[in-house]
C-alpha cells in the first residue's frame, strides 16, 4: 500500500485491519473478526470505541480479548481506544465467517452447523446419538459425541468411529 493510500484509509478501516490480527486466546486459529464478535468500530474523534459481544456469559476469555484488542490498537498507533460490551442481539456461531470455518476445520475443530432457530426448542433425549458432525481429520460422518462440553465453553467432544481419532466440535449456539 502506498503512503498516500494509507493516509486515505480512515482510522476505523485501519482499526478493522488491526483486529484481523487479534487472535482468540482459546481458539488461536481464529481472529476476533473471524469469530464475529466485533460489532462495530466508532471514531469519536478523541478516542476509538470498539464494540465487542461476549460469546458465552461466563467465558473467561472475554477480559483477555478486551485487553488484547486495546493493546493491538495502541501498538498500531490508533489509540486512545476503549472497549464497550454489547449483549444484544446475542452472539451466535452463525456469525463465524466462512474464512473462520475453514480455519477451524484446518485447525482440527469441526465447525458449527447452523444454530437452532430462535424459538422454543423441544428437549431431545439422544445420549450419544447427536447430529452428524464430520470428522475434521478424515471427513467421515460416522462420528459420536463423547460429551456436550469440552475444554472451553464453546466446544464439545467427539470421536470419529472411522479413523478412531478424538476431536472437538464448535457447538452451534
Amino acid at each position, binding site marked *: 500500500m502506498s503512503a498516500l493510500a494509507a493516509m486515505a484509509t480512515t482510522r476505523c478501516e485501519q482499526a478493522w485491519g488491526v483486529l484481523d490480527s487479534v487472535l482468540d486466546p482459546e481458539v488461536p486459529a481464529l481472529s476476533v473478526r473471524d469469530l464475529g464478535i466485533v460489532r462495530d468500530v466508532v471514531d469519536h474523534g478523541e478516542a476509538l470505541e470498539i464494540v465487542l459481544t461476549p460469546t458465552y456469559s*461466563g467465558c473467561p476469555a472475554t477480559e483477555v480479548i478486551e485487553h488484547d484488542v486495546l493493546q493491538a490498537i495502541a501498538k498500531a498507533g490508533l489509540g486512545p481506544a476503549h472497549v464497550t460490551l454489547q449483549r444484544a442481539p446475542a452472539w451466535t456461531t452463525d456469525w463465524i465467517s466462512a474464512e473462520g470455518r475453514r480455519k477451524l476445520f484446518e485447525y482440527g475443530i469441526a465447525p458449527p452447523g447452523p444454530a437452532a432457530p430462535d424459538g422454543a426448542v423441544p428437549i431431545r433425549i439422544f445420549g450419544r446419538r447427536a447430529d452428524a458432525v464430520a470428522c475434521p481429520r478424515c471427513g467421515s460422518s460416522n462420528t459420536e459425541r463423547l*460429551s456436550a*462440553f469440552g475444554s472451553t*465453553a464453546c466446544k464439545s467432544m467427539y470421536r470419529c468411529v472411522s479413523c478412531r481419532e478424538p476431536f472437538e466440535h464448535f457447538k452451534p449456539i
Partner: protein
Amino acid sequence: MQGSIAIDQSPSVQYLLRVGDTCLILGQRIAEWCGHAPILEEDIAMSNMALDLIGQARAVLTHAGQLEGRGHDEDQLAYLRDEKDYRNLTLVELPRGDFAFTVLRNAMVATLMKLLWERLRDSSDAELAGIAGKAIKEARYHQQHAADWVVRLGDGTDESRQRIEKALRELWLYVPELFESDAVDEAAQAQGLGPRWADLRAPWLEEMDTILDEATLSRPDEAAFRSTGKRGVHSEHMGFILAEMQHLQRAFPGGVW
C-alpha cells in the same frame, strides 16, 4: 473484617436478585464437582456449566446493583450480603449430594431457567432482555445435558435407579417454592419486568414429565412442605456455602488477583 451491605427492598431489585442468586449459588454448588466428578468428561461439563451460571449471575447482579442505585457492584452483591438478603431458591443451596442428585437438580433448575429466560427476552428492561437472549442458549445446553443423565440413570442399573429415585424424593420437596407467587412477582408482571414464576409451572411440569417418562421414573406428589429461600429465609446449608464464598472478601476487603 468487611461489614455487610444493606439491600434495597424494592420489588424489581428483589426480582433480579432471585434470578441472579439462583444462578450464583447453583454455579457455586456445581463448581464443587471440579476435580471430583465420576469421569473426566463430567468434571469438565460441570465446570463449564458452573462458569455459565456464574457469568449469568455476574450480569444480573451488576444490573441489580445499577437498578438499586446505591453503588453496589457484582462483587459487593455476591460477597457482602447477609444470608437473609440472598434470594435464591432453597433448592440450589442444598449440598451437592451424589451425581444422581446433582444431575436431577440441574435438570429441574435448567428447565426452570430455560422457561424463565425465554420470557425475560421480552422484558421491558432492555438490559435484562439482553442478558436473557444470551443465557437462554446456555440454559438449553444445560437442560439437555442433565436430561440425558436423568434418563441414563433412571433407565440404567439397579444402583443408578435407586440413587436417582432417592434424589427425586428428596428434591421434589422443594418444587412448590419455585412457583409460589407473591408481591415481588406480581409487581414484576405488572411492570413487564418478567413473568410471575407461577405461570411457568405448567410448562415446567410438562417438560419434567417428558424427561421423567423417558427415564421410566414417576413424578412424586407435590409436598405440603414449603421452602422459603426466595424470601430470604434459607435452609441450614446456606450459611456454610456463604462462609466459604465470602471468606476472602470479608477477610481481605476488595482483594483481587
